[in-house]
């Protein structure tokens, strides 16, 4: 059975207090974010745990988790490169960045390297079109990407002991 450490449980209670009495279902999106941070991805077990914390039926959590694109319903690598591919990024060379990362890591979009280090994903507009091309890594954006910057970023990840959040 998965569970949150004590300080995360406290954080869940803080989040629930943002909504009026009886409206704790509203906490499901932020708490799923916490679960993903904690467990890396949202297994059925993790979603059931979130349901129990918020006193919801498991289906209420599943239907939300499957709707929103930020939730990973399958295991991902330690570092997830989410590269924006929508129009404005495409105009600034995102196609080349996506294929370069894929080539460098030996994977296609949607795949994870065999060592479990990297996942490459393509995503829709990240709302940073003036800083294109870009990718999201954890909680931050890496902007104005070039092949050189991609090389440096991959090195940075390989040398890092944490998650670079």
């Amino acid at each position, binding site marked *: 059975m998965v569970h949150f450490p004590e300080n995360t449980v406290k954080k869940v209670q803080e989040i629930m207090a943002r909504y009026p009495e009886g409206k704790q279902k509203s906490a499901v999106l932020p708490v799923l974010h916490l679960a993903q941070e904690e467990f890396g991805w949202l297994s059925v077990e993790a979603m059931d745990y979130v349901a129990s914390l918020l006193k919801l039926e498991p289906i209420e959590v599943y239907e939300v988790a499957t709707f929103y694109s930020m939730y990973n319903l399958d295991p991902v690598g330690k570092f997830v490169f989410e590269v924006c591919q929508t129009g404005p990024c495409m105009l600034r060379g995102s196609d080349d960045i996506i294929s370069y990362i894929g080539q460098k890591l030996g994977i296609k979009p949607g795949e994870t390297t065999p060592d479990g280090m990297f996942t490459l994903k393509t995503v829709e*507009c990240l709302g940073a079109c003036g800083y294109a091309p870009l990718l999201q890594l954890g909680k931050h954006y890496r902007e104005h990407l070039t092949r050189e910057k991609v090389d440096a970023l991959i090195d940075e990840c390989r040398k890092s002991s944490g998650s670079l959040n």
Partner: protein
Amino acid sequence: MSRKLLLEKAHVEGIRNYDVYRREGGYSSVEKALKSMAPDQITDEVKKSGLRGRGGAGFPTGLKWSFLAKPAGVPRYLICNADESEPGTFKDRYLMEYIPHLLIEGLIVSSYALGSNRTYIYIRGEYAWIVGILEQAIAEAKANGWLGQNILGTGFNCEIYVHPGAGAYICGEETALIESLEGKRGNPRIKPPFPAVKGLWDCPTVVNNVETLAAVVPIINLGAEEYLKIGIGKSTGTKLISACGNINKPGVYEIEMNISVEEFVYSDEYCGGIAGGKKLKACIPGGSSVPILPANLLLKTAKGETRYMNYESLSDGGFATGSMMGSGGFIILDEDQCVVRHTYTLAHFYRHESCGQCSPCREGTGWMERILKNIEYGKGKMSDIDLLWDVQRKIEGNTICPLGDAAAWPVAAAIRHFRDEFEWHVLNPEECLKRNYGLAHYADPRTPAVA
């Protein structure tokens, strides 16, 4: 040089911190509003100012506020829409990241005007680092008595909470946003009832964009009379424009809405011209959902008049020869960029983001993406262009929410103005994979046309 009302102080060192923001005159609108104005007076002031929603629809904000039902004993809610997801748009992020207290200040005044004691900022989940910036600003505002119980001794109580989304363009639509804030899938609701009567948890609710709520600060500080004088006609005040694509200076610019599109594109104060010394081919002036315009129709209207950066002028000519101000997401394509490919990425986007509730949108966006993919990759037929036109027409106006229209319009405009480029793709299936079509007849009128 445009007058700046929102971003004037955005680059003062340390402006993210409360002390610096306050020293620079911050929170004066809260003092003025709460101490000397009744809530309805603020709504009247906003009405008089002519402020229009900055999220894309351009609906008059004061009017929207005046629709808010006020039954006794029922809570009312204000929600700030920070789900900025319209391709080409990144202005709200800029405002929240650089000058977060301006939004908090606008939210307090607006919450007081509407009687919202619990106000939510619904922010797109990807802006994860901005959540921390906003929460810090909220905590500082509260520590200094601008939020909490009995604010400034007026008896008004207010708390602001940040609520992250999780990756869904549709949640920028206000009823989908409300569903999402209630912890559900972001499926838009059928209107009526409108949120002003039945919104968050079935209570009266106003949803406004970040920039709209920030603009309440200068309106209260200057007064509606002064605010009205900035801008032109029904485009009052200033507007944030996020400029991207192949230009020399992509970024967020605050403009007075009386400058010409030509000045905006070519002046060093703004976009700084087309990158790499290339020619302007086309532009989507208000976020990916609004019609694309070829260079000649972007800079001048069909009547040959100068086109300006405001609501009326950008829509001059309707969809036949004009476009829309939209969200202010200004996307520039240069002479070497492919309209078919760009439209295909947008069709892919809308197919991905359709919530799936209405069949014209759920199925139609998939059809449009597949047809465009075929044409882009040299597998298209001439009849596909008409089929594409037919599909987009069957989506428009036939869905619960405007996502269907938003998906149809860019495809329609691309065919309307660039049909020859689509035909060239069909006629040259091999060549279209190797090179782009070029400028053809919709050339940048500032330079000689090149075929």
